[in-house]
């Protein structure tokens, strides 16, 4: 369970209401594949991921990024029960997708950087704290069912 103060919850929900989920999701996933190219290992079927330009304009990357960040919306709605919210997805990432949970932390941090880029000064240090707690909570929940 993520322990958020009322101010932190407010930071999360108010910022989330202004996020262009599809665009930001695509941006975040794309950046992860560019900044940490070894993460492309999970996306063999996505086509051309050979350069930054190719990755950022890849339609499958955009679509999948949108899907991932949309699921974050569930986290924002259920801040008090991240483990329950992500139980099925956790099993999927372990049993079917075989994703090292380290990757969840990496993507979480990239999402934070994307938010900082979009919101500028509005993404205060206090806001960053709230979002770091959330991405860490989601990463932890996604790893929770690993065995």
């Amino acid at each position, binding site marked *: 369970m993520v322990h958020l103060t009322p101010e932190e919850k407010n930071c999360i929900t108010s910022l989330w209401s202004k996020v262009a989920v599809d665009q930001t999701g695509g941006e975040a996933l*794309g*950046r992860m594949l*560019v*900044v940490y190219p070894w993460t492309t290992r999970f996306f063999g079927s996505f086509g051309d991921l050979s350069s*930054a330009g190719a*990755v*950022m304009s890849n339609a499958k990357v955009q679509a999948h990024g949108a899907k991932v960040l949309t699921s974050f919306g569930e986290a924002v709605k259920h801040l008090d029960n991240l483990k329950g919210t992500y139980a099925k997805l956790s099993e999927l990432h372990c049993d079917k997708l075989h994703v090292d949970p380290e990757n969840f932390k990496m993507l979480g*941090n990239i999402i*934070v*950087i*994307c938010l*900082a*880029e*979009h*919101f*500028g*000064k509005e*993404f205060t*240090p*206090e806001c*960053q*704290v709230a979002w*770091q707690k959330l991405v860490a909570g989601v990463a932890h929940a996604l790893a929770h069912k690993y065995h």
Partner: protein
Amino acid sequence: MSLTKSDKASIANIWSKIAPQAEALGTETLERLFLTFPQTKTYFPHFDLSPGSDQLKAHGSKVMGAIGDAVKHIDNVGSALSKLSELHAYILRVDPVNFKFLNHCMLVTLAVHFPNDLTAETHAAWDKFLALVTAVLTEKYR
């Protein structure tokens, strides 16, 4: 993981934007670090870490200054930061995991202030560069 020509160009380009505001950006990086990863404060029991403190500004300036030295000597960061490397290994002994936290907070700070300059390529280049600086600073740990 070494820096390509393209990486070096990206790094030099964004450094030219960072340099005029180095102290402010270094200070904000530290402020974000101490707030987001409070365990990092354990290395500064002797500091006043309240926002805007003179010590925080001085240290932010110092950190950015070292980054600037690394940028200026990008083909030989090991030599440029040799003294700092010894300092971190023998005196400061900051656990290596903390460099990643600092690097992340610096990226967040740059994203806040230079949204148009921190393209995916520049983000990657700067992340690689900070990883290189980290490797140099922890090189003599054991």
